[in-house]
């Protein structure tokens, strides 16, 4: 057990070293920071549309919908941006963490080591999940800062706690449904098909929602959980129950097992 733990700790440190130097880390931070600032910009406009019009932030005739500029609304907007952007950005993190070994051809070096391939896969998945959740925390901290600067009304400890809980919950669910994209990148030994997969599930999610079965399509669950699906469609989303959450967990577990088995047993040519 001790050996396994040591192996995993080593593999995790290796993944940390790899991402610390990568441009991808900074790109994902930038992407989420931009999303948060867009949310802040909306609040700024909503708070005083006349001032925004004067500053040229919106057109003279633009009608601004979306409620009032307050903390609950700001968080609702962030849930929407995080659940849509999260699928793309977290998906890309999983794709990059696995796919880079193939694009850089460094996977050869990982195949005959005292650290097992399954440990390496586990470390990669943990790192991608940790990275994703760290981005969620970044969004939360930036949101707090922006909200304070904008002096948004309606803030309270319970509103902030609710915002953090829902952000973390949305992030965790999104991270789990992104694990399969790491497998696709491994299986195809490339980024592109896996990135295509991310957009495919987004399109499928829209279609399946339209026919009323969104709650059974795992890649829709984070959006429905955060309330973003309802905000986007304007319709009342069906409630999420045990089956919906179980499907998310099932997708994650199957993806972890399949990725581990593939790395361990498939021919690495």
């Amino acid at each position, binding site marked *: 057990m001790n050996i396994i733990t040591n192996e995993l700790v080593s593999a995790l440190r290796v993944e940390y070293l790899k991402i610390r*130097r*990568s441009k991808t880390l900074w790109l994902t931070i930038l992407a989420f920071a931009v999303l948060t600032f867009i949310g802040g910009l909306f609040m700024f406009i909503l708070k005083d549309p006349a001032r925004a019009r004067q500053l040229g932030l919106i057109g003279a005739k633009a009608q601004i919908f979306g409620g009032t500029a307050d903390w609950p609304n700001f968080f609702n907007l962030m849930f929407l941006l995080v659940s849509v952007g999260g699928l793309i950005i977290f998906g890309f993190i999983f794709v990059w963490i696995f796919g880079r070994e193939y694009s850089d051809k460094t996977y050869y070096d990982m195949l005959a080591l005292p650290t097992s391939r399954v440990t390496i896969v586990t470390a990669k998945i943990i790192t991608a999940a940790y990275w994703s959740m760290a981005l969620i925390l970044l969004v939360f901290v930036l949101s707090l800062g922006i909200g304070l600067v904008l002096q948004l009304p309606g803030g309270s400890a319970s509103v902030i706690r609710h915002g953090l809980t829902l952000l973390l919950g949305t992030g965790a669910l999104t991270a789990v449904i992104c694990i399969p994209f790491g497998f696709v990148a491994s299986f195809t030994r490339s980024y592109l098909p896996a990135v295509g997969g991310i957009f495919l599930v987004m399109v499928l999610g829209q279609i399946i929602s339209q026919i009323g079965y969104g709650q059974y399509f795992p890649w829709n669950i984070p959006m429905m959980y955060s309330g973003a699906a309802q905000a986007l469609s304007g319709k009342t989303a069906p409630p999420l129950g045990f089956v919906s959450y179980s499907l998310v967990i099932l997708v994650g577990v199957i993806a972890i097992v399949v990725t581990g088995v593939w790395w361990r047993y498939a021919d690495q040519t």
Partner: protein
Amino acid sequence: MGTSLAIEASGLTKRFGDVLAVKDLSLNIRRGEIYGFLGLNGAGKTTTIRMLLGMIRPSAGAVSLFGTKVQPGHGRIWQQVGYMVETPHAYPDLTVRENLEIFRRLRQLKDAGSVENMIGQMGLAPYANRRAGILSLGNAQRLGLAKALIHHPDLLLLDEPANGLDPAGIVEVRNLLLSLAQNDGVTIFISSHILSEVARLATRIGVVHHGQLVKELTAAELAEAEQQRLLVDIRDIAAAQAVLTKAGITARLEGKNTLVITEKSAMQHPEKIATLLVEAGCPPSRLVSEKKDLETYFLELVGTKEGTNNEYNNK
């Protein structure tokens, strides 16, 4: 673990769909040997190395390294093995030092100094903080070897390690490998398509062709194979052959007008052959003493001509 064999492969076969890449290949490589694995491009060298390293599963046959069968779950065996498959690749955003640090950790090496030692040993100190992505091919190759050697393996498997190196780099790698074998007793399995390079290094050579091991020979046998021969161009071939046969010299015809003599006495005294032929009224138009090079020997051995496609597509 008491076996004297570093590599024991029996009946290795690998089929990719319709392509039979390796067929019933067996190897027994003793500890301390430098084994040259020679073959043309597409002969099955890389596929064999990958099977030895457990990267691909044989369709039939098995591999043991130091008596331990290569299969998923037997990861401890890799503590004794270092390898470099094809052109070495490294994480381009990371420095040379960081790339080695990754392998120190993945190889579970406690000694943090092993990275610096390897940087020094491989002459990488001036480039230690340089990103691997901007290294020259020679230095990338050194980094690849450093990754393979960082844990002081007992067995080193190298796939075409001289690929892309300039002559100075080739000599450097050769000397390093010789030193590892002679001073540290490291068993080295090295694949190449350049016989002359392998001949300078290996104690034993296996020739693979169309996925099969067609010949194994020792360094001494290989030296013998570097035959000298006498080429005699002559107009009246039949008459000349009769004269030589009468004198007890065997000559074989090569091309239209050339006789080839490989007997040692003829090699030592080519002037006697010339005199014999002149006196018999069939003077040679050209007489050349030639040392058969290893490449020619190799091509003869695998029975192929340059430029042919060597991939084995046998069903």
